[in-house]
């Protein structure tokens, strides 16, 4: 059961691909406003699948999904979720598709019903926040790897989401770009986010605790200093 504060509440989610053991096996998880958590686990342990289920891109075989205080089952239930939760894909080439950076960043806000002028303003602000001032007219597929990642992040935060889901935001990035992402995440204490990453140092600097996933279940929760806070499958994170 989700409390008033809980933004995402999953109960006994089962999801799998044909002829393989279930990726998520009665997986339960609660995420509350103001939390900053990391998600680690072996490759194929279901971390990205979990994000896709939260965004309604994959439908679980069984289990209950409660997001932003409402039960979510149908495609139409997830429209609101997508407006309020921002998802950064692993591969920036999947995320950027508009001709220019400005248009790509404006795409989300315009879908949310902003006017052209408001969208332009949001584009400028967002680029400033990420230190990308002047990138408006750059062509998205000509950007470098790090720039692509930062612009993808910009396209997500331009929608001013209440929660960020970041799927390996620093993979393949140099130190300077990683620092920029860390600075951004630490710039506002109101942010709530879940980060999938294999980079321990990055997680230590950006999250309060780390959930470890194994065999489709929550293994335990570890504080970013390495103290085990909670063991077990069903989990309610303690502060």
């Amino acid at each position: 059961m989700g409390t008033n504060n809980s933004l995402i509440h999953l109960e006994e989610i089962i999801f799998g691909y044909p002829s393989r053991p279930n990726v998520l096996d009665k997986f339960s998880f609660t995420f509350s406003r103001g939390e900053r958590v990391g998600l680690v686990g072996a490759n194929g342990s279901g971390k990205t699948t979990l994000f896709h289920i939260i965004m309604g891109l994959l439908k679980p075989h069984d289990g209950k999904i409660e997001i932003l205080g409402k039960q979510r089952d149908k495609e139409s239930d997830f429209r609101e979720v997508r407006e309020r939760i921002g998802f950064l894909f692993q591969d920036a080439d999947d995320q950027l598709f508009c001709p220019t950076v400005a248009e790509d960043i404006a795409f989300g806000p315009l879908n949310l019903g902003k006017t052209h002028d408001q969208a332009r303003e949001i584009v400028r602000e967002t680029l400033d926040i990420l230190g990308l001032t002047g990138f408006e007219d750059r062509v998205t597929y000509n950007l470098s790897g790090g720039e692509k990642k930062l612009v993808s992040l910009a396209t997500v935060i331009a929608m001013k989401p209440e929660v960020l889901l970041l799927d390996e935001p620093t993979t393949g990035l140099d130190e300077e770009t990683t620092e920029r992402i860390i600075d951004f995440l630490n710039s506002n204490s109101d942010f709530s986010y879940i980060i999938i990453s294999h980079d321990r140092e990055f997680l230590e600097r950006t999250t309060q605790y780390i959930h470890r996933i194994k065999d489709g279940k929550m293994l335990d929760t570890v504080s970013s200093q390495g103290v085990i806070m909670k063991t077990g499958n069903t989990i309610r994170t303690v502060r």
Partner: protein
Amino acid sequence: MIGEEFASGDSYIHRLDPRMKILIAVSYAIVIAVSDKLPVLLCGLFFPVVLVAIARLNMKKVLFRLLIVNGFIFLLWIFLPFTYPGKPFFSIGPLTASWEGTVYASMITIKSNAIILASIVLLATSSITTLVHALKHLYVPEKLIHIFFFCYRYIHVIHLEYLKLTHAMKIRCFTPKTNMHTYRTYAYLVGILLLRSYDRSQRVYDAMLCRGFKGKFWMLDHFELKKSDMVSGSVMTLYIIGLVILQWGRIIA
């Protein structure tokens, strides 16, 4: 992959409004394509040649592109003059070429070259991005524009994917030969490329959904029709009308 090598430049032609360039290019191509009079075509050829000069394009690159087109045209010259019935014109050995066949082949050659030249000078002098925007302003159906743009956008990505795969093959000492192993490997390459492209399209679509995509693309920039656009647009339109009169004038009168 797609170099857009003529798009960078700052000539009078480059600065023209892309909407107008598209309209002129399309109407010119239609008139030239359906015309069946040699004088009209010769007058028509004059147009893109002058524009190429004004646009100051790299002649070597332009000629190279024309060479590719004329490679195909050359095949026509082998067959057409000798198989088209008509008055004998010249003969090589036992083969006799007809006058009509030769004229016909010449017309096809002029048409193709004129249209390709016009496309180079009018369309290729704008970036694809600009053309996409211009098409939208011209009320071309959104779905067609999406297909056009996504092809362009992801050919680049799929090409990179292809390079990755061929590199992976090379570092494991693959050298193509005429044998089953080579054929099978290329079949795998094509297969995996298809799968990956399909997966990617799914992921791109998902990413768009996550940002609230409801079937509408947005544009931030708007074009402005300048005085110079109006002037050159009118001149070019008059020229095309001239071609039309030359071609069909008597029929109308």
